[in-house]
């Protein structure tokens, strides 16, 4: 005679119930992670502009501070300067044709004297900070930036050191023929530097901050990176790549997103809220080409019910200098979710596979049954 507990232990450990192991387990999981990572980037990239020469403003405050309210803001304010928000319309997302950059033979390596900083942009998604470094060919002939430069930093007392970086390839792989970056005079090559969050084991853990940072090119010349890099959780670096024309021409990436949403939402019910696109510059910013947007509910880093991408209702096509335009938003909240009722609502502009970090914002809500 045996107890049911013993029977359970026996059938639970019966090798005949084994599920066959995967022959390619690591690659299978990595492949899935790539898909998730791309979705996160698409839905979560926040941006802030910066104008200094190759200035990489890396502090969390710059990236998150003014653009991402940490707490929900009560009942939506439905007007700005006396103008109501643009009504929500359910418009299917615009899918730009697949990007195929023209084939180019590698040219002679670009030298430091032929390059100048053309600005850059930063963004954040799912704990990852993206810093797109842009350098422009100011020389008189086509040249090539290939591979990854060295990232140097200054360590007090010991001088210049080479920082360890890990290869990342999402942005560079977004378009065919993007690497190496063979650029004509006037064109820019981009490079993605990533820093990460999420590796902290206790709130008091010290950050590893790199200062005096420069990129050292193959010819020994350097591209200075202003400000600092937080290397606490590692640094990722892409190869130099040539951006797609779409990425280079999107005028609305400097817009700042603010979400005004109720503090709570009901599972299984539509959530209505307002997104404000603010123009921090003095000159108007065109909302053309009309962007898509993705709204996503997530808990503990995992998306709930998948992100929903639609095209913005671009009946207003310009945000005036120092002005703002509001858009009504609507999202169906899944029912039956039970992990953690504290969820994040992310809203991000998007456009195809653009390498440019996109304006976005995140607020936190409580889901109620």
């Amino acid at each position, binding site marked *: 005679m045996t107890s049911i507990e013993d029977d359970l232990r026996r*059938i639970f450990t019966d090798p005949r119930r084994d599920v066959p192991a995967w022959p390619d387990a690591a690659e299978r*999981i990595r492949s899935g992670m790539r898909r998730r990572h791309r979705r996160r980037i698409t839905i979560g990239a926040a941006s802030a502009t910066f104008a200094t020469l190759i200035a990489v403003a890396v502090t969390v405050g710059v990236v998150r501070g003014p653009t991402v309210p940490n707490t929900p803001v009560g009942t939506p304010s439905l007007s700005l300067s006396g103008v109501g928000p643009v009504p929500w319309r359910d418009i299917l997302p615009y899918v730009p044709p697949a990007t195929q950059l023209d084939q180019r033979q590698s040219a002679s390596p670009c030298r430091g004297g032929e390059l100048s900083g053309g600005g850059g942009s930063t963004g954040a998604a799912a704990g990852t900070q993206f810093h797109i470094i842009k350098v422009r060919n100011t020389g008189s002939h086509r040249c090539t930036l290939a591979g990854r430069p060295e990232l140097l930093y200054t360590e007090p007392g010991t001088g210049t050191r080479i920082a360890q970086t890990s290869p990342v390839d999402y942005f560079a792989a977004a378009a065919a023929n993007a690497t190496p970056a063979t650029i004509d005079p006037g064109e820019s090559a981009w490079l993605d530097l990533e820093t990460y969050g999420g590796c902290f084991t206790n709130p008091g853990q010290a950050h590893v901050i790199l200062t005096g940072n420069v990129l050292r090119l193959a010819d020994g010349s350097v591209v200075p990176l202003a400000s600092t890099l937080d290397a606490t959780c590692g640094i990722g670096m892409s190869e130099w790549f040539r951006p797609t024309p779409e990425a280079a021409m999107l005028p609305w990436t400097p817009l700042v997103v603010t979400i005004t949403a109720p503090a709570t939402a009901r599972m299984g019910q539509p959530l209505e809220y307002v997104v404000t696109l603010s123009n921090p510059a003095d000159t108007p910013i065109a909302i053309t080409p009309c962007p898509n947007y993705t709204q996503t509910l997530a808990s503990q880093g995992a998306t709930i019910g998948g992100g929903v991408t639609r095209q913005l209702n671009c009946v207003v096509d310009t945000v005036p200098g120092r002005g703002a335009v509001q858009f009504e938003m609507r999202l169906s909240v899944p029912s039956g979710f039970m992990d953690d009722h504290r969820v994040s609502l992310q809203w991000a502009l998007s456009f195809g596979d653009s390498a440019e970090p996109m304006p976005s914002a995140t607020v936190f809500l409580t889901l109620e049954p």
Partner: protein
Amino acid sequence: VGVVWDAPGEFDDFVRSRHAALLRFAHLICGDSHQAEDLVQEALERAGLRWRSIRRPEDPEPYVRRIIVNAHLSFARRRRRERLVAETPEPTAPDVPERDEQLWRAVAGLPPRQRAVLVLRYYEDLTEAEAARVLGCSIGTVKSNGFRAVAKLRAALPAQETTPTGGER
């Protein structure tokens, strides 16, 4: 060029060495080998993207198993409203004694949370308190679910056992 986020090569080693055990665990939790693969895939992807934060304090495997359990319970709750036809039964494993097969099917017919409690208690050998932490519920809920589950199994199986149900270890 490989894409690297938070997960170094050490994560690949973890996947290679532990995914088979995780597949088995997921199979016990959900009762379906195909869904088990989906659950493990989901759990490992999520773990990989947060690897640096989960590997340091402790063995990451309990974290991954917790994702599997909660993902299944969440999935089961969502699907409950959608299910219109009976489940396709898992094929019978070859050469399994009849009583074991009956018990397997009886376990498969339990509500997901009750089934999860049994797996955590009698496969993972967790205490009721540990099982409660994995499930995100109270010890009392674990006790009541375990009690009901065993009672249902007793009712579903031919009378055979005489040993009473054990308590908290």
